[in-house]
């Protein structure tokens, strides 16, 4: 079963621990954080549970169709939107419980002082193919 782990810059429940923005961390703390993420992905791949993952820039804009023969309308970028996605990882695991366990592990990535940042991760199941046998 595939699940999306969504990391938000903003949005989601109130942070469990207030953490300074990453650009105020010591360089070694940033390195440790990034290494934790990479090691986490590598472990997932070794266990046969990794599908994909990417980080997203906070830049970008909303875009929509504006009628025949007209260019699309863009809106943004927004400095203060309520929800901003920072990145995502797709995992393929045996169960929801396993997905929750892994999200918990990812959320323990170290921040300032090497302490876990306790960030909220959103876990969302993928829609699948319908089963063949249904009666």
């Amino acid at each position, binding site marked *: 079963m595939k699940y999306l782990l969504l990391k938000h810059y903003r949005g989601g429940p109130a942070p469990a621990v207030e953490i300074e923005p990453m650009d105020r961390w010591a360089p070694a703390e940033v390195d440790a954080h990034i290494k934790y993420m990479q090691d986490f992905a590598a472990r997932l791949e*070794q266990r046969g549970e990794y599908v994909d993952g990417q980080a997203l820039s906070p830049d970008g804009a909303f875009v929509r169709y504006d009628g025949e023969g007209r260019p699309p309308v863009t809106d943004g970028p927004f400095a203060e939107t309520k929800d901003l996605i920072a990145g995502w990882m797709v995992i393929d695991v045996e169960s929801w419980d396993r997905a929750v366990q892994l999200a918990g592990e990812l959320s323990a990535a170290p921040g300032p002082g090497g302490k876990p940042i306790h960030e909220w991760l959103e876990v969302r199941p993928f829609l699948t193919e*319908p089963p063949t046998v249904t009666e």
Partner: protein
Amino acid sequence: MNEPLLRELVPAVIGVLVRRGADFASAEDAVQEALIRALETWQADPPRDPKAWLIAVAWHRFLDATRAETSRRGRELAVEVEPPAGPAPATDDSLRLYFLCAHPTLPQSSAVALTLRAVGGLTTRQIATAYLVPEATMAQRISRAKKRIAGMPLDQPGDLGTVLRVLYLVFNEGYGGKVDLASEAIRLTRHLITLTDEPEVAGLLALMLLHHARRESRTGTGGRLVPLAEQDRSRWDTSLIAEGVMVLQAALVRDRLGEYQAQAAIAALHADARSAAETDWVQIVEWYDELLQLNSSPVVRLNRAVAVGEADGPEAGLAALADVNPDLPRYTAVLAHLHDRAGDLELAAELYAAAARSATSVPERDHLTREAGRVRQLLRA
């Protein structure tokens, strides 16, 4: 090139390497490499004796890998470099291979992957494509599975139940990808039937054939889901149905009923009906009662409630649904359908919409959304 023939040879060739002294994990790796080489070269340069070619290439790969390993560890080569003279023994290790690959200690996804590779002769890339994960992830999943069963002998009887479960999962994965997993599951189950005398294997094969027969009619344009009652029955594959019914009857006369036989019997009753209206729902309910005796699962109860609704009317169906766990996927969809049939359209529309929100697949979600829309149109009219 005859790829199905090539794939059929894979388990036998693994068996030959294991009998020559290779451990299962290394033998399986070597045969996978030989298989990939065959896929690359046989087209232009087909061998006269495909099996002998595979054995020779796999054996050399195995020796190369073992030499590299032993020199790395500074140990003696543990196996004979030259294969024993004379023809390979005729023993068929395929059944043992099924048991090992579907070993109860393995997670289901690993058992599925290992079975498809070692018994099914698929490449890691094909399996990865079928399950929409990167090849490296699938390779690791298989390699971890082999580590977990390392040291388990290949000459032990195993658990047929987990083997059948794995084949059922492969079949039920559907037709999403480029690799036709349903046909692959049928091929492996046909092979399994020649290796064991258990009527449940026939029951599973019959179940697969009877569902596979409806394959073309199950989806409409753009992957749209067509429910059983609305399927164009003239598109059902009558030869698959005939075979499925025959396989099932031969299993049932042996009087050792199991859940796959009971499920196949239900599928056979659907296959028998020339139109949805002619379905023998009373007999289908009886088979669900049998099935409940064998496996009292919530899903069986849910499907039974659908059948009761058809046999005795929606009120009876709703009553049968009362003791089903509402957390089940499809529970709300069934509830919506029964209220729809009972004429309670307001409630049905709301339930269809709720069921769409909790659907686990895109075609089911879209189907339920259309159902909600259809009922709401009726309400407005």
